[in-house]
């Protein structure tokens, strides 16, 4: 090939990557714009404080679903955060041990499991034996999803803590556990909090693990052993219903859900960048 043709080919392929970037960002913009257009009109204060109306009727809100999602995320965090952070600390400190390698690999495997599989597991584990759908079962499914996410980020954040810091503490006579708990963990804490936020943002929008665990609830319920409403479940049932009013509620709910998820993600991203200077790769 002549030099000119090679140059032309190069320019063409490079413009194709520009095109790929444009096409890849298009769906996101389309989805967000559509959400704003369809959902924004139905967001009013009452949406956050009122209960859902019976199907086919105008108005009403999603107060129970919003509170339900918060409760589910809370239960999931109680299960997922301690295990995830503890496992992450272990992995960071025992980097090369065979058991650590195995746990790291299995945690990746757990991360790759479809969320619906965790849903049927939670059903088998908490719904079937206790004879009823419950917020607890939903929280367990979501918590299990959180564990590998939190483990990974905790390990990475602890590894970022300079070894010299740990050595200084040990040289001053600190024991290992106090060094880990007060020096290393303290230093890595902002990063770990970020990891926790990312995990929460991810599970807050999950629907599949809740379908037959938390089940959803048209009424007000905050107890852990009863079915509980959740924002994603409510959006799902409105989306597949035949009524236009329900569709409008689904769009509004989706807008609120996305706003929650995006705000948490943005906080997490901003916090990491300011602390470690690695927000954007």
């Amino acid at each position, binding site marked *: 090939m002549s030099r000119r043709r090679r140059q032309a080919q190069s320019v063409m392929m490079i413009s194709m*990557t520009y095109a790929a*970037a444009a*096409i890849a960002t298009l769906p996101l913009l389309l989805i967000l714009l559509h959400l704003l257009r369809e959902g924004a009109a139905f967001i009013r204060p009452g949406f956050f404080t009122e209960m859902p109306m019976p199907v086919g009727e105008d108005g009403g809100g999603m107060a129970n679903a919003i509170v339900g999602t918060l409760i589910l995320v809370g239960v999931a965090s109680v299960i997922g955060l301690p*295990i995830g952070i503890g496992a992450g600390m*272990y992995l960071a400190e025992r980097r090369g041990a065979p058991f650590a390698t195995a746990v790291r690999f299995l945690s990746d*495997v*757990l991360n790759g499991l*479809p969320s619906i599989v965790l849903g049927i597991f939670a059903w088998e584990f908490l719904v079937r034996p206790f004879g009823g759908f419950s917020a607890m079962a939903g929280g367990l499914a979501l918590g299990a999803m959180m564990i590998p996410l939190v483990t990974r980020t905790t390990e990475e954040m602890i590894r970022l803590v300079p070894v010299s810091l740990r050595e200084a503490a040990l040289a001053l006579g600190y024991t290992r556990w106090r060094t880990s708990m007060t020096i290393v963990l303290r230093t890595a804490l902002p990063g770990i909090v970020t990891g926790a936020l990312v995990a929460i943002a*991810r599970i807050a929008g999950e629907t599949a693990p809740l379908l037959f665990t938390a089940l959803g609830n048209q009424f007000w319920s905050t107890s852990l052993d009863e079915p509980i409403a959740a924002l994603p479940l409510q959006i799902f049932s409105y989306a597949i219903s035949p009524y236009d009013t329900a569709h409008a509620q689904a769009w509004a709910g989706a807008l609120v859900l996305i706003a929650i998820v995006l705000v948490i993600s943005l906080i997490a991203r901003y916090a990491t960048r300011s602390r470690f200077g690695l927000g954007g790769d």
Partner: protein
Amino acid sequence: MTDAAAPTRETDPLGVSPVAAAMKASLHGDRIYHVLTTAFAAAVPLLLLLIAISIGLAAWPALSLAGLSFITASEWDVAAGQFGAAPAIYGTLVSSAIALVLATPLALGVSIFLSEIAPKWLRQPVGFLVDLLAAIPSVVYGLWGIFVLIPLMRDPVGPFLRETLGLAKTPMFSGPNYGYSMLAAGVILAIMILPFISAVTREVLLAVPRSQREAALALGATRWEMIRDAVLPFARSGIIGGIILGLGRALGETMAVTMLIGNRPEISASLFAPGYTMASLIANEFSEATSDMHLSALMAVGAVLFVVTLIVNAIARWLVWRVTKGAR
């Protein structure tokens, strides 16, 4: 490590008793700390084992009754008590394949753009936007799919593929087009797995040493030749790993697919025909399953999904690890 350090501390040359006592106490702390973190770490494999056992046990009645024909039989008739998972397995594979075909070139293009070509000021925002795709909940994709993508599939996508491209005669694009279809599910999956493939690919491309690029340029390669001949071959197995990781996501994705694929347990050659995936089958029928065998059959579908995604993910991790281990 703790154990190795213990004897030297106990034979403290000063032998001052309060110090020794304090050290002994703190070594207890070390032991407790070690046991605790080990226990948390052990919770991960235990949880995985628990999931495998409980789903395996629940799936056993259906699997032992049907044997291997569970995955080969194509009749899923709840009323007749026939549970053949072949349509759902077929649908899972086909919708994921469509997703990979659509998402892979795009993800590769974006990753090359972000790691090699884009001016510095564009990298952050574009990378951020692509990553944000991963933050959108599945149910929101489904909602958007029902009201935007499905109408688009009926018109103009359907007519475009059939008439404009003249594909109407091929079995893949024949038959009625209701919108709810394998193709719609594949398209939404493509959008959903794009950020996962692109994130891994970007990471792998960044792991390619600078010297590799400089050598190619010094030999007179154009920018594209440098990418094609020096960068991509080096990153190949990692990129494949990223694609397989995306495949793992697509196989198990539930909500958006359930809302768009039409949910009919039939094997049809046409991509415009409705179908079923393993995940959507479980999502749809689980809460309505009344007979023990139906429940067990759905658990068995879950077990198949579990095993398939496990294998796919393990392969992907291994491939990515092979490329990135050198870079760290």
